[in-house]
């Protein structure tokens, strides 16, 4: 697939996602992940950060793309937007690992064209951060991510309404974003 048509797919999926299409949104996230992985691994390699930490960076970028997707202007190309978010979070993540680096945006754009479909190495940051969420939020996150439960199943299991589960999930993800940031402040 050439880069323009890939970005057209991304943009189309994201537009559908904004209109409430959860499947399109999942396709978008699944499709960008290998590209983010290529960028993260290449950066880790060139800076001597253990490659096992690349997946942590991938997840942090995905979370940021999720939380900040309202900052994409759907009338503009999505590729530069993804590259800009990726670069910003890459710098944060590497800084947290003690590497003070500048990451040229051109390099991110170039590497984003590549895909890394090798098996992912485990990510660790997210599990540590989850343990700092409120108990109810953590239960919901674990039910959906680890056990693959739907919102409805999670609601039944935790004796909550579906609406309450959705709200709690949304807050949990926002809280995770804050936890990534505050980690940076502590180092």
């Amino acid at each position: 697939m050439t880069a323009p048509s890939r970005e057209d797919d991304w943009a189309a999926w994201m537009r559908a996602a904004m209109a409430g299409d959860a499947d399109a949104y999942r396709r978008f996230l699944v499709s960008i992940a290998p590209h983010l992985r290529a960028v993260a691994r290449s950066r880790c390699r060139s800076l001597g950060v253990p490659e096992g930490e690349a997946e942590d960076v991938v997840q942090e970028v995905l979370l940021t793309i999720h939380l900040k997707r309202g900052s994409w202007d759907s009338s503009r190309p999505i590729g530069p937007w993804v590259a800009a978010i990726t670069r910003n979070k890459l710098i944060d993540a590497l800084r947290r690992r003690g590497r003070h680096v500048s990451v040229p945006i051109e390099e991110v754009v170039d590497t984003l064209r590549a895909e890394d479909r090798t098996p992912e190495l485990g990510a660790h940051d997210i599990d540590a951060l989850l343990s700092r969420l409120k108990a109810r939020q953590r239960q919901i996150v674990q039910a959906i991510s680890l056990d693959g439960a739907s919102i409805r199943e999670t609601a039944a299991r935790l004796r909550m309404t579906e609406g309450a589960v959705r709200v709690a999930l949304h807050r949990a993800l926002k809280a995770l974003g804050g936890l990534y940031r505050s980690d940076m402040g502590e180092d």
Partner: protein
Amino acid sequence: MRTDDFISLLAQDTASPGNFRAAFTMAAAGGVIIAAVLFFAALGFRPDISEAMRSGRFLFKFVVTIALAVTAAGIVRRLGAPTGSLARRGGVLTLAPALLLGAVVFELIATPAGQWEARLIGRNAGLCLTLIPLLAIGPLACFLAALRRGAPANPGLAGAIAGLAASGVAATFYAANCADDSPLFVAAWYPMAALVVAAAGFLIGRKLLRW
């Protein structure tokens, strides 16, 4: 957690993220309304407003302040996206200063040197330096709230330009109350007030707008 599982998690959060552009439009309107309410409640037009409306010096104050509000707000709208920077359109921010500079040159030519000092000092410098920042608080808060929906690559810069836009809104109202119309007065005091607000926007933005 595996990234596949993490993606499943994200995909289940279907709450609308809120669109930055829409939030910005609301913020601009809200900021103007707040400043207007405060202005009409606490200050109001100067007593000789109908006479002033016939004075070019009075009217030109609005050309400058509205130019600042519009250009700076346009830049804030761009800086809310992570791809935004001053590089491409930042030059429009020189419009208001250039207009003001032109008016200053005109004033220096049109009035005898003996009057320059009195016109520059004016009568309301202290009010100008207090009321513009006060009127700017509401608009600045609105712009910053909208920017939190965005993802500014440089939070401090976005906050500072939001401060300029808020000053433009505030100064547009204040100018209708202030009796000092000489471009010399405007050039001496208005920018100082705007810079105070921009500095506040920078400091708040640097903390509040990180993402």
